[in-house]
């Protein structure tokens, strides 16, 4: 307690332009192309779902968040809402999207004490809640609609009521096809995003470009997605070499499901990822490993969400284990 924690020298100081709101809003801005591609592929359903999940997140933040005028302006609730919306299937009823946003903010962030205090990524927690609460609705993937304007499912189901599901409407994601019917999807479809899937996760290319923009602006820790991609590519490649008929190749694994969206936007959430560089590599490698394990040997066809949430829980330990040695410090005798 004798020495101050921060050394402050005399002025003049160089002042950085970044604050929480500027970073948050630049992430929101970088999501615009992803949102646009979601709307391009899935029509009005995508716009409605994103609006509903954002509304759920913002309303909860407004009602129960810390008092003050700037609570909505920092953009973090908007990001949670948008990211959650991007992980939802296009035919989901709007009330479920709203509920997911509210749960994500309420139980993913506010109960821990607000922005910066949470352990788990709020958007993924909302998604996990919806997955556990409505397992059928959240795994119903509509096939391509006849016109851009038509809805991709029963978006307007009454609150608390189940959507009218028609079996003719339900298709399967590339991962589901691979796991349950051993059918591969062409790589080009995966990269461009012309497959069934959640709103924002289909077009890997758009997500990569947006991630690159954020990384260049230093608003995104590039080591985490890089580590995830490397681990997944190495493991998937190795297994594919062992048994090509059973295990899909690295391109399929990287571009199918929510891996791109998860690696670029979810795993890099500043609050719930490690602070050290070494920790980021470990964090990413853990996510990559868990994704492969869940996808190939688990009961579910997709495991990105649970992989990230599980690694979120380990972040405090990773941080502690990867403390860098302070420059000039001498290790204590028989250090603890």
């Amino acid at each position: 307690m004798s020495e101050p924690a921060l050394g402050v020298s005399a002025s003049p100081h160089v002042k950085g332009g970044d604050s929480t709101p500027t970073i948050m809003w630049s992430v929101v801005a970088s999501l615009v192309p992803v949102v646009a591609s979601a709307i391009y592929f899935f029509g009005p359903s995508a716009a409605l779902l994103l609006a509903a999940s954002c509304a759920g997140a913002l309303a909860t933040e407004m009602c129960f968040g810390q008092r003050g005028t700037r609570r909505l302006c920092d953009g973090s609730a908007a990001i949670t809402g948008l990211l959650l919306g991007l992980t939802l299937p296009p035919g989901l009823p709007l009330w479920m999207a709203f509920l997911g946003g509210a749960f994500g903010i309420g139980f993913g962030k506010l109960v821990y004490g607000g922005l910066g205090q949470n352990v788990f990524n709020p958007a993924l927690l909302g998604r996990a809640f919806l997955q556990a609460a409505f397992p059928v609705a959240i795994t119903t993937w509509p096939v391509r609609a006849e016109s851009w304007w038509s809805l991709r499912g029963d978006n307007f189901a009454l609150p608390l009521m189940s959507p009218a599901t028609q079996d003719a409407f339900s298709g399967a994601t590339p991962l589901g096809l691979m796991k349950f019917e051993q059918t591969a999807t062409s790589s080009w479809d995966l990269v461009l995003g012309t497959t069934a899937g959640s709103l924002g996760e289909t077009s890997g290319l758009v997500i990569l470009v947006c991630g690159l923009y954020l990384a260049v602006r230093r608003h995104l820790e590039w080591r985490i997605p890089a580590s995830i991609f490397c681990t997944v590519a190495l493991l998937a490649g190795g297994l594919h070499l062992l048994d090509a008929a059973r295990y899909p190749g690295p391109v399929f694994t990287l571009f199918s499901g929510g891996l791109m969206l998860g690696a670029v936007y979810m795993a890099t959430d500043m609050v719930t990822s490690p602070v050290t560089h070494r920790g980021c590599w470990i964090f990413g490698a853990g996510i990559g490993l868990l994704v492969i394990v869940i996808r190939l040997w688990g009961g579910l066809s997709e495991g990105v969400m649970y992989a990230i949430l599980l690694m979120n829980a380990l972040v405090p330990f990773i941080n502690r284990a990867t403390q860098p040695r302070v420059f000039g410090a001498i290790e204590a005798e028989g250090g603890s």
Partner: protein
Amino acid sequence: MRQTTPQQDLLRGLWRENPVLIQMLGLCPALAVTNNVENSLAMGLATFFVLCGSSLLVSLCKRWIPGEIRISVYILIIATFVTVADLCLAALLPDIHKALGAFIALIVVNCMILGRQEAFASRRPVGRALLDAVGTGAGFTLALVMLGGTREVLGSGSFLNVPLFGPSYEPWVVMILPPGGFLTLGVLLLGLAWWEERRRERVKAGGVPAGADMEPSPALGMSLSERASSRGDAA
């Protein structure tokens, strides 16, 4: 040392020192079997029966139980009543018995029951011990039914198997799974803490005193964080 009236003995366990919601004892069954009202009620009543029987017997026999082996004897008494409850439930309500499974037998290790024997029944006259057991058992049942009711309404769209929202209700499956128990209990405790804080603020603001005849219980008087820290001290 404070004298308590019979009314206090009866009502204390019901709400102000509710075993689940305030003392946070017996959480294992409170989380595990409360996925609908029927199971919660059965579990609550089985526990109620065991608690009343054990308290009565322990209070009756307290003079003949040597202090060194009192815990063993209490456990023996509790286990006997649990076995009786288990067998009766299997004979009368086999479906509910199957749904509750091992948790009926696990009433033995519900520390709320042993706690009441050690803290109350072994030191008080029979009548008071029985009043206390009735109040605590009813409080336990009440808390379980609150949990079970919330979970059944959301998770199955019904209350006591009576559908509430019609056939097209979309059940929140998570609420009848184990995570639903933790979520519901957490929300319930959050609500209670918030309500208690509001009440204390009103009292501080010079509004209505907190009920002339009802002094706030020591546990309720603490905020959740104070409770957590005092627990940490004890550990």
